[in-house]
């Protein structure tokens, strides 16, 4: 009878460094979720009037929240870079018989990221 080797459902990602890195990348999605929740909190505060919105801003200014936002920002950068770097695999662009170099596809994502961020900061009156 064939022998089936057991696989640990709880520690498999420790078996290989690349598995661990992959799981860390997956974990960054949690921070994307946290940021989305904070955004929803802000939108809800705006909808409920200036008093509530001021309360939201005060909430963001707390030391715990500042630490969380800094950690989230760093993790979000890692998340974006990790996924942008694999976009050439998911979205190859073929021109005639050749494929556009992956660096151009990944690079285009960074350009779009930069332009959109700039547009949002402009709209927010940062500049």
């Amino acid at each position, binding site marked *: 009878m064939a*022998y089936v*080797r057991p696989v640990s459902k709880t520690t498999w990602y420790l078996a290989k460094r690349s598995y661990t890195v*992959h799981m860390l990348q997956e974990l960054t999605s949690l921070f994307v979720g946290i940021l989305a929740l904070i955004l929803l909190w802000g939108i809800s505060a705006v909808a409920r009037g200036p008093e509530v919105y001021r309360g939201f801003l005060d909430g963001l200014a707390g030391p715990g929240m500042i630490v969380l936002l800094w950690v989230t920002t760093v993790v979000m950068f890692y998340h974006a870079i990790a996924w942008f770097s694999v976009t050439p695999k998911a979205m190859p662009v073929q021109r005639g018989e050749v494929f556009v170099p992956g660096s151009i596809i990944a690079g285009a994502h960074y350009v779009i990221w930069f332009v959109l961020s700039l547009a949002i900061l402009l709209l927010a009156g940062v500049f």
Partner: protein
Amino acid sequence: MSETKLKLEILRYDPEKDQEPHFQTYPVTCQDDWMVLDAINYVKDHVDPTISYRWSCHMAVCGSCGMMIDGEPKLACKTPVRDYANQTARIEPLANFPIERDLVVDMSDFMGKLKRVKPYIIRKDERAIEEGEHRQSPAELMKYRQFTLCINCLCCYAACPQYALIPEFIGPAALTMAHRYNQDSRDQGLAERQDVVAMPEGVWDCSFAGECSEVCPKHVDPAGALQQLKIATTIQWYKGLIGMGGK
């Protein structure tokens, strides 16, 4: 020709005698240009004729000699012994597959899954032979050519953490074959493959760990194929919503 010395630590399993597999070590003196497969062949021919393993072409074409070499799925015929000079190379059957005997795994799960994705050209409108061949431009060929290089060695399945955890997952090589035919301008079978491709055990069980592409000895990039298949499947789903089925 200079010599390379190494030890092969080979996983042994005899289903008629053993409750579970165990390792057996064989010191081998190899010629410097040997591959790991040559070293295993040497052991089989001169030291222990009872070792079971698969191999055939010795030129990375047949895909038979896929095995775990120091924990990495590799073709034994393409892995030089000098990479393990004066070391112990641990040789195991491909991970994530049941062991039939020694280094021989049971591949029937994969064979069944490969059949399910219909890895062949499907035509809705067959045309008569006198109408001539289905012509294809070089650009149309390039769209899927890379995926035709798969030799079904199953190294990708041995590297895939999702297949290890979810045995129902259709897996990298079979889904890559589905994508290869979906991308073929002569094919009209996308809708027929979609039932398997779009189900949870199809592309959606892939978490894009990317290990399949890392270990692929033919540089097929199954991880890329599966992500492209996810996008195509999503587009197909939206097309279905507005009543525009694909090919």
